[in-house]
């Protein structure tokens, strides 16, 4: 038996009349299938609904679209029926849905809001009636030179918005966004414990197009089948909980050199290393922009700070840099760029040591402040953030205006991948997204090392006489080319070189996917430029794109109404918003405060009316800590890591230190002239040779790996030093190894 009962939270929850325990929810299961390629993915996301309540239910599942993604259609299936959605203008779709609800029919509406947030509404779900809704989604992937990373959100992360209100519940939190900006979007309730929520899982086909060496996941346990160009990847266990994104990383044997054709169109992916090495001459102007908001607390901010130190150590004398840290407020290391001298490095370290994470995420203000530092000629911003903000179009507008390339390094178990990828692509920068369990410092160093001028400019891509649009090629960013053309060969040429790539005819299904992927990317890009409700020209353009590709957008929604026998017109369904898990690794205090949780058990025990009273409100304003902790003491002494190699002064760390930790720390000790520190010139040469060896052992060379800049600088330093015969021999060996 089931009864609806008001919990201490004031919400209705279905509980068992027998046990008093919460019943399974309106949505039971979410299963992801489909095909993932280096150019994007075509996904089928199956949502299984079945309600244990006694009255009909309107289930609302909220989720966020991945990067460069759009919805194509859905199928709704149940006992004795199956129906495919119609693509309609939003207003018409909503009306149709409402008519369906009013008639007592099963009505399904998939509607998109700002930031790629979606509400999937399944109205008039009858008690015990199994209904499946299978969404077809086109989505982009994060493309690397030698592989790609696919990310699918199994939960929607709570995020910062100046006008949002967060409410702490005994077992989680909920958040409300201002109607004028977000319309009637409904956010899920976040549960501290995702167990007992709907099960999630996946079974995907990976198509490499060229040999894949491995497929790994930093988020889920995998079972992987197949070899060569494709893989079948599934969840190693029967089901998982919705508290983090699925992240898959596929690595290819060599840099991408892929060209597919279908029905008069060509899509190609070319690794940046195919174009050679970047010129080293141009001095770099870099501002590290560090998100120190509350949601970054813990390991992300710690790793980020270390990585920035190591990045600064790799700067050359002619390079200029600064650091900007932001939460609700912005703080900068300096009012103008510093050179990379010893003095400025120490000031940078002091600045970093004072940074603590707390407060909101006023990302636009941080970007603006950083952009001012490199104006007017521009430069590169290295942004470290979890990107957890709602209402991103104005931020993107600020970023586009800033005149800087923004390289975004996202951190988190539940992503704002869509937003950060736009931040990168719309400013000419790169974007990578890591789970909080991966090493942020190595990724930042790697990203930092690839910040430079273009590897190839004035790139021309032709297919038998037809020129396709192409941009300049930057390190670590493979070139993606799409366009209408037909032929067997892709000719690529630029000022310093050229190569050709055979064009392979794509299987039919893949061809259609490639076309839709181009459409989804176009729609996502246009939407990110629209502030508020799409109106006038913007709405028209978006409608035209939606119609052209048959894809949903903010102006076109998907709807289906299934008339069943015994539909009772006028019956009012109970609204049930499907809860999700608080993203793993995200501290609830960052958004919902902790106060009520500790007395959660008590709350359940006392009278519901009384329990209402102590409901703790955490407004966004309270994100700002009462007082920022500032340690104005002197900078910590630079630890002499090279001493370690000789067994001297070994510092005992509280946490276990890994090989990577040592390398990052070592990298941060590089002095302004490119050598390691030491008391005498002799000691410095020895330490530098040892450090070089360590970096080479870790796999970095002159042109590869996160420490490639450190390798180059150390080599320069040592080769210019006064070496004895033995040292000269060692250098020769090291130079050979570094040559890659």
């Amino acid at each position, binding site marked *: 038996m089931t009864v609806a009962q*008001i919990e201490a*939270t*004031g*919400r*209705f929850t279905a509980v068992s009349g027998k046990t008093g325990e919460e019943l399974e929810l309106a949505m039971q299961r979410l299963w992801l299938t489909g095909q993932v390629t280096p150019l994007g993915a075509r996904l089928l996301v199956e949502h299984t609904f079945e309600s244990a309540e006694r009255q009909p239910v*309107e289930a609302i599942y909220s989720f966020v679209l991945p990067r460069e993604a759009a919805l194509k259609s859905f199928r709704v299936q149940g006992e004795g029926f199956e129906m495919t959605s119609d693509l309609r203008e939003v207003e018409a779709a*909503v009306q149709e849905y*409402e008519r369906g*609800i*009013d008639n007592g029919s099963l009505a399904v509406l998939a509607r998109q809001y700002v930031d790629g947030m979606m509400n999937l*509404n399944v109205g008039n779900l009858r008690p015990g009636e199994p209904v499946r809704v299978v969404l077809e989604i086109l989505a982009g992937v994060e493309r690397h030179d030698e592989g790609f990373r696919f990310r699918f959100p199994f939960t929607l992360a709570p995020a910062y918005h100046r006008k949002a*209100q967060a*409410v702490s519940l005994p077992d989680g939190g*909920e958040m*409300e966004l201002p*109607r004028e900006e977000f319309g*009637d979007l*409904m956010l899920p309730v976040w549960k501290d414990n995702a167990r007992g929520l709907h099960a999630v899982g996946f079974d995907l086909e990976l198509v490499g197009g060229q040999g894949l060496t491995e497929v790994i996941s930093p988020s889920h346990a995998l079972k992987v089948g197949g070899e060569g160009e494709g893989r079948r990847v599934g969840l190693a266990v029967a089901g998982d909980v919705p508290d983090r994104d699925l992240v898959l990383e596929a690595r290819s044997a060599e840099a991408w050199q892929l060209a597919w054709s279908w029905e008069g169109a060509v899509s190609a992916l070319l690794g940046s290393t195919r174009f050679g090495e970047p010129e080293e001459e141009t001095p770099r102007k870099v501002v590290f922009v560090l998100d120190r908001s509350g949601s970054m607390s813990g390991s992300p901010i710690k790793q980020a700070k270390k990585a920035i130190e190591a990045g600064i150590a790799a700067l050359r004398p002619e390079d200029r840099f600064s650091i900007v840290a932001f939460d609700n407020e912005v703080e900068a290391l300096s009012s103008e760029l510093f050179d990379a001298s010893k003095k400025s490095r120490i000031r940078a370290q002091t600045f970093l040591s004072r940074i603590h994470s707390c407060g909101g995420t006023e990302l636009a203000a941080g970007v603006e402040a950083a952009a001012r530092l490199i104006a007017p000629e521009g430069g590169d911003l290295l942004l470290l953030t979890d990107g957890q903000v709602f209402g991103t179009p104005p931020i993107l507008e600020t970023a586009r205006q800033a005149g800087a390339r923004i390289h975004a390094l996202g951190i988190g178990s539940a992503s704002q991948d869509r937003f950060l990828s736009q931040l990168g692509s719309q400013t000419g920068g790169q974007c990578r997204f890591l789970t909080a369990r991966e090493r942020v410092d190595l990724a930042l160093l790697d990203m930092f090392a690839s910040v430079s001028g273009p590897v190839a400019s004035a790139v021309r891509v032709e297919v038998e006489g037809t020129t396709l649009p192409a941009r300049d090629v930057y390190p670590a960013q493979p070139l993606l080319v799409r366009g209408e053309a037909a032929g067997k060969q892709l000719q690529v040429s630029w000022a310093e070189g050229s190569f050709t790539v055979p064009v392979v005819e794509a299987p039919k299904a893949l061809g259609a996917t490639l076309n839709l992927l181009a459409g989804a990317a176009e729609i996502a890009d246009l939407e990110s430029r629209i502030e508020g409700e799409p109106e006038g020209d913007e709405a028209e353009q978006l409608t035209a794109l939606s119609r052209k590709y048959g894809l949903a957008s903010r102006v076109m929604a998907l709807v289906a109404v299934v008339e069943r026998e015994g539909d*009772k*017109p*006028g*019956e*009012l*369904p*109970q*609204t*049930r*918003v499907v809860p999700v898990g608080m993203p793993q690794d995200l501290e609830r205090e960052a958004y919902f405060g902790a106060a009520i949780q500790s007395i959660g058990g008590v709350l359940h025990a006392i009278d519901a*009316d009384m329990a*209402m*009273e102590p*409901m703790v*409100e955490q*407004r966004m304003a309270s994100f700002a800590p009462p007082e920022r902790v500032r340690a104005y003491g002197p900078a910590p002494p630079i630890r002499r890591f090279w001493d370690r190699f000789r067994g001297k002064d070994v510092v005992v760390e509280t946490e276990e230190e890994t090989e990577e930790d040592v390398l990052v720390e070592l990298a941060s000790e590089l002095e302004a002239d490119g050598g390691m520190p030491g008391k005498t010139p002799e000691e410095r040469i020895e330490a530098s040779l040892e450090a070089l060896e360590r970096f080479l052992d870790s796999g970095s060379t002159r042109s590869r790996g996160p420490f490639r800049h450190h390798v180059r600088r150390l080599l320069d330093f040592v080769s210019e030093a006064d070496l004895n015969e033995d040292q000269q021999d060692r250098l020769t060996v090291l130079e050979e190894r570094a040559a890659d």
Partner: protein
Amino acid sequence: MKKNGFSLSELAEEAGIPARTVRFYISRGLLPGPVGAGRGAKYGAAHLERLREILRLQEEGLTLAEIGVRGEKAVPQELPEPEPWWSYAIADGVEVRVSSDQAPWRMRQIRRALTELASQLQEPGEREEQED
């Protein structure tokens, strides 16, 4: 407002919010459900008033959770059974209502008292005229 109340979509339109949001508020216990069921389900002026109050409180910065706590006594969940009452206009601007559910002897007693009261409440002018 129509004579017999609003449908859900009419109520939503009147308040200027989507019908889905109204259903959500009802499910959260912020707003009472309709009077009647099925096609005959109607919402009244009290519903509209409460809905506007919710929107106003939201404008003021309250969350739905807080509004829920405040709005306990807003509108009774269901209308009570109607009760018949007699209405006597005993003087200009004075009306007395008597429950029709009275024993006959009691009813006669009340009517007598009301007649007396009515004569006392006659306009001063009228009374003077009578006295003259």
